[in-house]
């Protein structure tokens, strides 16, 4: 699996004087096989980073590389084999009129991988869904099942890096537990590198080895998991976020 390196990433929306700089200068490294978290309040630019890494936004400056290779220089085909993304809302990210089979078979066909049925069956098994679900449409699935399909779709091209944008925040706690377990198991089995955005520090603590705290587009601090309870954060905003999350969790 491959590491991810983000160097001096900058991004603004709009042009000229009306331009809004959402990411002034962001740098961080994610080791191969690591789960790296991005936390921060809404509007802090954490999802924007994922969109830049995935080249869904392309007007950024700086350098993003996967396994030493800049994502900008990759062809679309190559990029899709390197990284895949799972979005927040499984109700919005699956095409309502395409069956699971269509959603999963399309990438295989485009990339001319062959063994279509085997690959689809494998992906479904990997995410814990029965193979018979291939013929279902999104409206015939629950929220958790939809998110599993979205993950299966991300797995089907055997990427190295998975970009997870709040993969469980639209789900109930009980379903969130299932999806987090699934993501954890997949990482252990296949050694994916995860870049995970979340606003929930408990989820980040459960999943990630290290995480970056973001505010107004700036990475204020990169912390290890033990910094949450250890109180070793130094930046005022990072401390505030950790304190608020702890206070929220442990009854007052």
């Amino acid at each position: 699996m491959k590491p991810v390196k983000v160097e001096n990433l900058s991004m603004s929306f709009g042009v000229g004087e009306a331009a809004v700089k959402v990411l002034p200068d962001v740098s961080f490294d994610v080791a191969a096989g690591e789960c790296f978290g991005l936390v921060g309040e809404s509007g802090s630019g954490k999802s924007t980073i994922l969109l830049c890494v995935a080249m869904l936004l392309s007007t950024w400056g700086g350098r993003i590389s996967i396994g030493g290779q800049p994502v900008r220089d990759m062809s679309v085909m190559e990029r899709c084999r390197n990284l895949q993304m799972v979005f927040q809302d499984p109700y919005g990210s699956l095409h309502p009129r395409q069956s699971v089979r269509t959603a999963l078979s399309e990438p295989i066909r485009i990339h001319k991988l062959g063994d279509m049925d085997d690959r689809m069956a494998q992906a479904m098994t990997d995410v814990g869904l029965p193979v018979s679900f291939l013929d279902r449409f999104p409206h015939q699935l629950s929220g958790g099942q939809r998110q599993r399909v979205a993950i299966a779709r991300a797995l089907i091209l055997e990427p190295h890096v998975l970009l997870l944008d709040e993969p469980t925040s639209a789900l109930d706690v009980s379903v969130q537990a299932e999806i987090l377990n699934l993501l954890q198991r997949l990482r252990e089995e296949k050694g994916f590198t995860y870049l995970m955005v979340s606003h929930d520090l408990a989820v980040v603590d459960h999943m990630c080895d290290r995480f970056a705290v973001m505010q107004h587009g700036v990475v204020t601090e990169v912390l290890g998991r033990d910094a949450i309870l250890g109180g070793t954060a130094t930046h005022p905003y990072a401390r505030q976020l950790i304190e608020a999350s702890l206070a929220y969790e442990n009854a007052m």
Partner: protein
Amino acid sequence: METPILEVEDLSIHYRGAPQPAVRNVSFTLGRERLGIVGESGSGKSTVGRALLKLLPTADITAKRLQFGETDLLNATEKQMLDIRGNRMSMILQDPKFSLNPIRRCGEQIAEAYLTHFRCSKREAKERALAMLEAVQIRDPHLVYNRYPHEVSGGMGQRIMIAMMLLAEPRLVIADEPTSALDVTVRLEVLKILDDLVREKGIGLIMISHDLNLVRNFCDRVLIMYAGRVVETLNAAELDRAQHPYTRGLLAAQPRIGGNRQPLPVLDRRPEWSQPMEGTA
């Protein structure tokens, strides 16, 4: 014991055209306290809140008793309900981005709540609204009064919503996921403001939420709903001692800071949970 604010007995709600009722035989009594209703999406918790305000034109509501103070909600006319809504019973919704009118200034919307229910001059209503903005700890009420909803942050929007809903000093406030759209750092602040006002004015509060942590900290009593039924009623402080496997499952499925990172226990849903239970309060 003082007379309860709200008495609900055997409330069932059936959306027309749906094969099964969304809510079945829910009973509870509410005094001057904070009651939490917790459950997963689809458990019927929000439907209960809306039924109390009779905001469900497409559903059939049946109950043995639905008494709010002197008013029998079950037989109340729409005219009576108009007088109750926002005056004696009000509701705080999830996301201020969608629940405030985007093309009117925040302050005017708050003042409108007062003008609708009390005979007074516009000037008096404005003064009331400004005082209320101050009560929800907005530092510069005059500035915020003249802003449009898109010009305020989520936390401030929700405080404006609270100001609007508490302005008429209702006896009962229903808060439907009041903070799930907010960032953790402002969530506690907003909850604290709501909590202080509710206690100070002696208002009954029904807090509808999917978040067990939230109701544990901000409620006195908790109803846990599953598939349209109340499966368990607990004192919030005793949530850890829950008996029902569903409640215990929900508590265990929550990742915790400093947890052991073992796979989280997942809920093993039993068909008997959606059957009526023996001995529920």
